[in-house]
């Protein structure tokens, strides 16, 4: 019993010591609260539209007829795209696209209306870019809609002239329709899928880097013997006490984000909300563990920091939210598993978003717990480095 109280006392002492260190330099405040608050504000305000609206496109109208003008009117009525300019030739429009002023354009050929009426089936040319995928795809999707509406318009006129009934006209025009349901994202919002992983990705990145920094800085300043002494000689007490204040701050930030995203803004999830809290807790803990692992592996601040930085930035790509991990080459699929954020993503999708229950995602939960064992691999090495200070500090 006295042993345990002793341990708590030591941890508390280290905790108080860390608190003083944190208040001594702005970098600690910066690396915890400022970066993450800034990122949240940045992402949420940048993508406040959810889905980009009024993507700029152009038009080359060689026909200038009733038909082409009504098509242009239809395009401007769409939410997704907006005609910002008219061009006199294909070349001019293409150059505007190369300049990045527009993401696509439609060319109405000369004699469009006349040929359409005479049953010559003139072709409508739509051009878009995939060099910018999001706006390019939106331009494509809206062009597609417009082209079908245009066709339907011409056909409806002919069918109506024959006296066909309205419901039958719809069936004639489009015998099959698709009713698309985007699960947990009813407005197909890009912001939801991006921010749900990007912010936790930045959180994980900050935790890894700050953990390396705060332990490594003591090694560099040769203050680790004092730290161990405060901790009663136990490296576990030292690490727990030292990282506890950070861990608490990051947990509060993580929880606030989850509440903000899923409760206040209302990003949809089918599972219970507490699953997100568990997942983010595991993300915070496993990221700390990865940080300890890095500084234990290279007990030199600058080396550990360089390595940890290069690793943690990769995590965002390897989470698989934009480009699916399943489509990467097999070695990369394996590589992706060693990032806490990848496991977070999988648990989030299965457990919280789709309400799969633990049955489908226990592997990933276990995966996040395995990260927690990483520090034990380097504990001895780190303790030696802390006592002997036998690594270069520059």
């Amino acid at each position, binding site marked *: 019993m006295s042993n345990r109280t002793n341990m708590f006392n030591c941890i508390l002492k280290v905790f108080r010591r860390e608190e003083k260190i944190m208040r001594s330099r702005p970098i600690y405040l910066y690396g915890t609260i400022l970066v993450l608050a800034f990122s949240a504000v940045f992402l949420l305000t940048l993508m406040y539209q959810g889905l980009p609206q009024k993507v700029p496109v152009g038009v080359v109208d060689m026909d200038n007829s009733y038909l082409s003008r009504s098509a242009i009117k239809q395009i401007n009525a769409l939410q997704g795209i907006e005609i910002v300019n008219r061009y006199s030739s294909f070349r001019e429009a293409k150059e505007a696209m190369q300049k990045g002023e527009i993401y696509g354009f439609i060319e109405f050929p000369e004699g469009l209306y006349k040929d359409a009426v005479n049953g010559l089936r003139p072709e409508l040319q739509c051009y878009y870019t995939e060099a910018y995928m999001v706006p390019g795809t939106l331009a494509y999707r809206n062009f597609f809609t417009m082209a079908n509406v245009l066709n339907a318009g011409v056909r409806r006129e002919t069918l109506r002239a024959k006296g066909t009934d309205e419901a039958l006209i719809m069936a004639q025009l489009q015998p099959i329709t698709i009713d*698309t349901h985007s699960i947990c994202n009813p407005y197909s919002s890009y912001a939801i899928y991006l921010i749900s992983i990007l912010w936790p990705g930045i959180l994980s990145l900050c935790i890894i880097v700050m953990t390396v920094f705060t332990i490594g800085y003591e090694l560099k300043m040769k203050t680790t013997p004092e730290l161990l002494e405060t901790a009663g000689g136990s490296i576990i007490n030292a690490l727990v006490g030292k990282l506890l204040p950070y861990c608490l701050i990051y947990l509060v930030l993580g929880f606030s984000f989850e509440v903000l995203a899923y409760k206040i803004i209302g990003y949809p999830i089918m599972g219970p909300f507490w699953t997100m809290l568990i997942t983010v807790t595991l993300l915070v803990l496993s990221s700390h563990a990865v940080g300890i692992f890095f500084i234990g592996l290279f007990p030199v601040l600058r080396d550990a920091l360089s390595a940890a930085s290069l690793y943690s930035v990769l995590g965002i790509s390897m989470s698989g939210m934009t480009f699916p991990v399943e489509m990467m080459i097999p070695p990369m699929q394996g590589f992706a598993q060693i990032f806490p954020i990848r496991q977070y993503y999988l648990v989030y999708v299965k457990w919280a978003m789709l309400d799969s229950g633990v049955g489908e995602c226990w592997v990933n939960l276990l995966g996040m717990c395995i990260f927690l064992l990483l520090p034990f691999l380097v504990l001895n090495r780190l303790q030696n480095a802390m006592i002997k200070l036998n690594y270069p500090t520059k």
Partner: protein
Amino acid sequence: MRDFKFRNIKTALSQMLMITWNEIRCIFKDSGVLLILIIAGIGYPLLYSVVYLGESVDQIPVGIVDECGDSQSRSFTRKLDATREIELVDCVNMDEAIQMMKGRRIHGIVVIPKDFTQRIGSGRQTTVSLYINMATFFIYKNIALACNYVMLDEGKNIAIQRCSAQGLTEHESLVAVEPVPNRMTILFNPGNGFASFFVPGVIVLIIHQLIFLAIGMMTGTRREENENRKLSTEEDPSKKKVYRYIIGQGAAYFFIYAIIGTYILMFVPRIFGLPHYASAWDVYRFLLPFLLAVIFFSQTWAIFIRNRETGMVMFLFFSIILLFLSGLTWPVSSFPAFWKYFSYIFPATFGVQGFVKLNCCGADFALISKEFIALWIQVIVYFVTACLSYRYINK
């Protein structure tokens, strides 16, 4: 008098060269800076290219619940299965499909209703339900595209059959069904590849970030080793000649990145078959102001970096912010005004946009004059601020 001026220029030049030489020596002596500047400079572009080597997202498993199950509905599902994007997985009922979806074994569900054939047969409209998980953008996009394509194609066939049944000729049926056909053409990145879209921009960002971190590390180390957090060493020029120091030091990074930049921008896209429309001359013409802007920009920030490691801790997360500010993922046209102007601060914004236009869109140099001029303005502004910043530090 003229002679005096000439001598002045000569001393300035020799002094700058000495500073450059000294800086290069320091870089190669410092394993941390070397790791960032050269090892990461060589390895990171390769790594990102390999990560996205898959390029396209094909054969996505999608569940099919065919409640109708006759020849008409099977023709529809066969067409779905035949698309490049989708691979159908048979599900007995909706419950099974949902369970598979929850385990991420399938990423979408197509439900064909019981009365599918009956409704088509009686000339009414039938609705196929599609459920897609939007957790991964490219999976969502490709499933939706494939399904829409098959829906329209199958719908067109049915409509043509109906017309033929009414005694129209083939051409008449086509005119009746689709009086104005359309052709969709992708002008740039026609393969719709993810690597071809993402990597050309990211490698420019990598150059920006690595130079920034390396210069930050170097200045941080110098200020740390100096008792008064100053930057002066014995090679330093007097306070009034700060520009010599800025140019001399900058030249070191410029020379190193003229070489590594060539590798990143010229060789990496060719190795991995990514778009590389820009000519060497255009690449170098654009690289010149980009590198100068990045270097002077990084030197300006020295004022905030008092320790070797602070730069890394402070600006690492900015890589992600800069990626968004460059307009590669989120279109600039949808930026709120504040963030649009904010993005003008960073050379990366113009660098990424300029290179993507040159390399992926095959733009002539004249078409990227906006970015080119913006970078030169940054070069001038950041040169002045870098001088001010160094003067302030050494005050």
